């Protein structure tokens, strides 16, 4: 058999951002970059990596910001044990997602998957990929309905999240409308009637969230490049995707923003297999080619939305509340055989990492403890995440807290709904509630 190089169907790009929503956890100096924050004692990025591996994709580019690249690089080089062929690209710290992609555009050779390092889902990859394969859209995007929070730290930073209005054609799951509430009239919601003529049954939801998992056609990278030249800090979610969605209906916009040009260039370079097959077919249906101006304009863009079924778990660890929620969810479903026995009591829905010692009369409920955690006597941990190498002295009470690695909480402290930064030392007998305990930093 002659050797033939296998042409991969998709390339994947993992976007490892800074994690603005996860400050102070994602602070590189004291703790670790967002991609490495543990969820059930596994770095966050290992979940999308595993998802990609099971999808059959082999080439993965991890795009990291310069600030977190060192630790992430170390993890990917030395610690990661999967089968994926991973290369890492480092981009400037204040670079939008579209810009980051534009930087690596020469490395994109095929249709590509873009996934965020904070996406955790139990959705079997083939469901999403198969939709893309069968429908052959310009972009497929994943949307999910976030599960209801069971309470916990909402993150002391209560950012009002921007809600998105997502409109999907109910008959063919085409993504036809996308708008952020901050760009909209607060009084009125309005849609063009002509859009409704094309898509007579349209579901509009305010609950759906963008999963930041996309599959793009190869030519979109050229468009991304153009968008990122036009505006600084261009983002996929806020600029590229809405542009594509609008280009499905607005000819002038598509022409002006170069969408049409990019699409046509790719079409002439490599015509779609389907068109090729049709042209060779002897039973081809006679196609009436109407090239006149009045002929209905056919957009070169087609956007598809995949909405994750309600019983499939999907979540993004892009805020402290969501991070907490995901941790709790994954703790529930993880195997807990390895939990140590001993004097302390570990609840059924908790997880304790390796080499973690529990002192006498210590109880752990609904919590995740990392490795090498030292815990004193009579410590109560409820609803909390404790990362590696944390020291909890005697009589400490934690409720709804996240304690970053290397932190030390001295005796008799009682914290509720707090975040403790990496390496921070909480003095003894501290009483705190809803606080963010971190080293003062000069920004």
């Amino acid at each position, binding site marked *: 058999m002659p050797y033939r190089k296998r042409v991969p169907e998709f390339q994947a790009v993992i976007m490892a951002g800074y994690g603005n929503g996860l400050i102070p956890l994602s602070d590189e100096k004291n703790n670790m970059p967002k991609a490495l924050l543990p969820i059930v004692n596994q770095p966050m990025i290992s979940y999308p990596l595993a998802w990609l591996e099971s999808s059959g994709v082999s080439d993965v580019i991890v795009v990291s910001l310069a600030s977190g690249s060192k630790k992430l690089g170390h993890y990917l080089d030395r610690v990661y044990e999967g089968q994926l062929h991973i290369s890492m690209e480092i981009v400037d710290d204040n670079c939008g997602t579209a810009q980051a992609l534009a930087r690596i555009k020469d490395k994109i050779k095929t249709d590509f998957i873009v996934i965020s390092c904070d996406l955790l889902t139990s959705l079997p990859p083939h469901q999403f990929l198969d939709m893309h394969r069968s429908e052959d859209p310009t972009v497929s995007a994943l949307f999910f309905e976030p599960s209801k929070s069971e309470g916990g730290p909402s993150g002391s930073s209560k950012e009002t999240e921007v809600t998105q*209005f997502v*409109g999907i054609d*109910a008959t063919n799951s085409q993504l036809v409308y996308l708008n952020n509430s901050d760009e*909209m*009239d*607060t*009084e*009125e*919601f*309005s*849609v*063009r*009637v*002509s859009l*409704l*003529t094309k*898509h*007579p*049954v*349209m*579901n*509009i*939801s*305010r*609950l759906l969230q963008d999963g930041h998992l996309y599959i793009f056609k190869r030519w979109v990278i050229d468009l991304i490049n153009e968008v990122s030249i036009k505006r600084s800090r261009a983002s996929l979610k806020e600029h590229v995707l809405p542009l594509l969605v609008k280009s499905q*209906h*607005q*000819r*002038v*916009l598509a022409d002006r923003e170069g969408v049409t040009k990019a699409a046509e260039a790719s079409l002439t370079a490599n015509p779609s297999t389907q068109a090729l097959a049709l042209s060779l077919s002897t039973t081809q249906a006679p196609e009436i080619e109407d090239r006149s101006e009045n002929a209905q*304009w056919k957009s070169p863009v087609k956007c598809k939305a995949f909405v994750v079924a309600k019983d499939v778990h999907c979540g993004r660890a892009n805020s402290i509340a969501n991070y907490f929620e995901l941790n709790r969810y994954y703790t529930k479903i993880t195997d807990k055989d390895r939990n140590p026995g001993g004097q302390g009591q570990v609840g059924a829905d908790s997880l304790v990492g390796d080499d973690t010692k529990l002192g006498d009369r210590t109880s752990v409920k609904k919590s995740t403890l990392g490795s090498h955690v030292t815990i004193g006597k009579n410590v109560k941990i409820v609803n909390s995440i404790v990362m590696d190498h944390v020291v909890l002295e005697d009589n400490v009470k934690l409720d709804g807290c996240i304690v970053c690695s290397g932190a030390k909480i001295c005796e008799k402290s009682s914290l509720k709904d707090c975040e403790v930064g990496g390496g921070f030392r909480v003095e003894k007998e501290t009483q705190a509630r809803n606080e963010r305990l971190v080293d003062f930093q000069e920004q």
Partner: protein
Amino acid sequence: MPPKEKVESTEQVLQAVILADSFDERFQPITLETARCLLPLCNVPLISYTFEFLAVAGVQEVFVFCCSHSDKVKAFVKKYEKSSNMKINTIVSQELMSVGDAMRELDAKQLIDTDFILVTGDVVSNMKLDQVLEEHRARRQADKSAIMTMVLKKASPQHRSRSVGDGSLFVLDQGSKECLHYQPVKAFKSTREDRRMTMNMEIFDKHPEIQLRNDLIDCQVDICSVEVPALFTENFDYQDIRADFVHGILTSDLLGKTIHFHEVSDVYAARVRSTQMYDAVSKDIISRWTFPMVPDSNLQVGDCYEYRRGLVYKEKSVVLSRTCVVEEKVVIGANTQIAERAVLSNCVIGKNCIIGANVKIDNAYIWDNVVIKDNCVVQHSIIANDAVLEQGVTINKGCLISFKVTVGANTTVPAYSRLTALAEGDEDDSDAELISDPAVVGATGRGRSFTEAEGSDDEDNEEDPKNKQVNMLAFDMSELKLAAKQQEDSASDFESEASDLEEDLISPEEELDREVAATLDRAFQDGHDVDIAALELNTLRMATFSNFKEMRKRVIPGVLKHIDPVAKPGSGKTAKEILSRWGPLVGKMIHDEEDQIDGAHVLHRVCATLYRDVLQAQKVFAPALRYFYDEDILEEDAILEWYHSEKSQQGTDIEKKLREVAVPMIQYLEQSDSEESDDEDEEEDEDSE
């Protein structure tokens, strides 16, 4: 017929209300002489279909509201009741002008004491209502505020039984089956409001997931609770059940009522709202979509149709000649005679008609007792009872030939004509003599062409006439598109994406540009007062959050534009004439000294750009400056300030040349200025002395 066992003392009597009047004039002139609900549809009066539909739904008592031609409706109902086991009451009121009036009347008479079915007298449907009734009742038990359930049929947006001009958009919550928003859709969307579906953002607070629907046929079959008529009484301005009532209830915070929907998909439901729908529904009946309501089920007593191959329905007593051709989809009523070589296709022919030799009838609806003599051609039209077409008449598409019209031999009736044999003027006035119009009906004809305005104080005056047109019989969309293009009308064609888009891309500044220009044009054309124009501009300024500076930038060129530098005096277009008329308007945009300086700059710049060459510009600029100075709109300090400012000294050649024009004036001003100050000095000197 409703099953007998349903009539039980324990169960409430199911009531229905039929609004027999349509409250519009789409079938005129035919409806001048008979009621809309009695028009024959496939040779059966329209309202029979509605009765049948209600009977199948198990309705036991029906109230028929009628207004025009109530005696005819009453007589028909009386006859019909005998063969039906529903109790049918006719309520006549001459004052009814709208659905709202009928509902108020219903409330006033207190005839209804339970949930009822509200339909119009032109519904053709074969759906069963038990499920929706059940749903409605269950919902009412759980929640008293659910006052109405609309029955909506799923179809595609371009479905033929979906009337083009009467589309509607619904916003629904599929979970709670609630209707959240309603908006009618016009065929021609001339304004921005027409082109967009706009709803209140608050809807999302309660219903985060909604569905926008543009594929529903709304045949106005509603299950209403007793509150509905009462609400009409409370809100005495409600006229239409959809545009006013549903919209009003859904947008009102105070009422707190909800309206639900029930979606059906596998049944037939349509309303004969227009001649175009008359055509569509007739075809549906012939094609048996409305089964069991088809001609051969003989809804009318005495009918005896048989169903033949090729969707042909024929009474036994029909006389077909040997060589006539009856093609597909034809209904022929009793005792009709068809002569040799006549060709019939896609048509309905009533009772006792005589069709001559060589006649071609296609797509037409010919009612009872019509005589069509030899060699006539009838296309896509409606011909009412007792009409006569003499030999060789051609009826083009889209015509309505009313009762007893005679069209003389060899006449060609143009497309979309409406002919009546009623005398002009009041329809009740029997003394008036009919004056036939030989140009329309031929020398021996009887009848005249009917014009819309007569006998109707038209309330939809403001409606786009094109939106009326689309409802017409045999209306061809492509024709209209062409016409619209020729007119270059602002009302863009059907789905014009580009124009939709433009409106999104327009920046507020461009918008202001356009609005100011439009306001000024109006003022110039209609010869408004300066005060009125100023008021309009001020309103515009406030509406767009703009300031006087922006307004000046637009108003000054707007005024100067009308000056024709080469015009002769007396033409009304010279600088002097225009300025003396409209100059004060500029004055209204200038208040303090800063404004004046800015105004001078704008004037300078505008003159430099507005005219073709320097000479023309100078011809306008000099008198304009002079005028503004004389009228104290620009005071001398401001003009001097402008002249000496660096900004005015720079700029293009034209601008520089224009500045030179001002030199004599500046000199004059400076002189007078110094004189004044000299005077003052002198005075002071005097004082000091």
